[in-house]
């Protein structure tokens, strides 16, 4: 049986890579490899997953130096064929243990960016009519499928430089809400995302867009927020 040499990060912020031998199988995913290690070789390995089908966003890790969703990443697609596989926790997040990161700050930033819907309609109001072909609906749809996996956040240079930067995922969510015509907190949200650590700090390196497993473009969303913020400032609304 062909074996795969896998190097896995063990420890917290301090730690080391430990090598394991895992049987190579067809259509094997990186998550399969990690699960094999945990079940057959070392039950103390800590990692996180839930759905296994690319919906929940909990299994992201650094695979051979690149942040990826491991459940939908084939070993063969990341240079694992006959070679070695290196698996580490996501960058830019505190490590709880082994491959599990503390994602609290990542999600707190969604709240800080007012990444939640704020409407004023009640059940007595009629439905809001939103034309699917409208510019706003198109922009909203383009960014709405985010699963919150943190791959963009771990890939962002600006997050690495300044820990208070809101990051691509939170800003992408804010942009979908800026384009939600039913939402009432537009100016409030623009204020939340345009401060010192908001959308204006983005350097457009496009790593988030390149790495996003859902093929979203947080870069485009952040550019939209920049335009909306400047427009609001010019109109004296900010």
């Amino acid at each position, binding site marked *: 049986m062909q074996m795969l040499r896998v190097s896995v990060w063990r420890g917290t912020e301090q730690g080391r890579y430990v090598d394991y031998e895992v049987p190579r199988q067809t259509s094997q995913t990186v998550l399969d490899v990690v699960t094999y290690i945990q079940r057959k070789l070392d039950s103390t390995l800590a990692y996180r997953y839930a759905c296994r089908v690319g919906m929940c966003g909990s299994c992201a890790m650094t695979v051979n130096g690149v942040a990826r969703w491991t459940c939908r990443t084939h070993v063969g697609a990341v240079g694992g064929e006959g070679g070695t596989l290196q698996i580490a926790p996501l960058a830019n997040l505190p490590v709880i243990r082994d491959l599990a990161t503390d994602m609290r700050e990542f999600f707190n930033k969604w709240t800080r960016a007012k990444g939640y819907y704020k409407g004023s309609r009640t059940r007595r109001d009629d439905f809001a009519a939103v034309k699917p072909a409208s510019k706003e609906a198109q922009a909203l749809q383009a960014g709405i499928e985010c699963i919150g996996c943190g791959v963009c956040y771990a890939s962002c240079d*600006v997050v690495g*430089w*300044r820990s208070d930067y809101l990051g691509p995922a939170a800003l992408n969510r804010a942009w979908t809400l800026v384009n939600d015509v039913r939402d009432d907190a537009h100016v409030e949200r623009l*204020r939340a995302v*345009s*401060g*010192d650590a*908001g959308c*204006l*700090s983005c350097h457009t390196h496009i790593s988030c867009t390149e790495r996003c497993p859902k093929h979203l473009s947080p870069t485009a969303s952040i550019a939209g927020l*920049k335009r909306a*913020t*400047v427009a*609001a*400032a*010019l109109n004296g609304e*900010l």
Partner: protein
Amino acid sequence: MTQDVRRETWLWFAQRASAAVLAICVIVHLITIIYATRGGLSAAEILARTRGNGAWLVFYIVFVLAVAVHVPIGLRAIATEWLGWTGSARDWVLAAFGVVLIVMGLRATWAVVL
């Protein structure tokens, strides 16, 4: 907080607007360099072209002002991201640097045009 948001937005806008001005200025500047060196480069030749020329005076004043706006804002981001330097001391130092750029730039413009 609101003040901070407004200041950051205006600074960002000023840097982008000055970049747009600089893009034109740099192109004109580069074309002039290529054109000027064709006849051999000398101080006398440069001065003959620039002395008493109102168009070059206006061009270089705009160029200097755009640089003085653009550079300190860019350095501010570098100071924050690479050195972790934030706060009002950083802003005052960089504002002073902007003034230095204006003084030196206008002095040079003065020297070649007037």
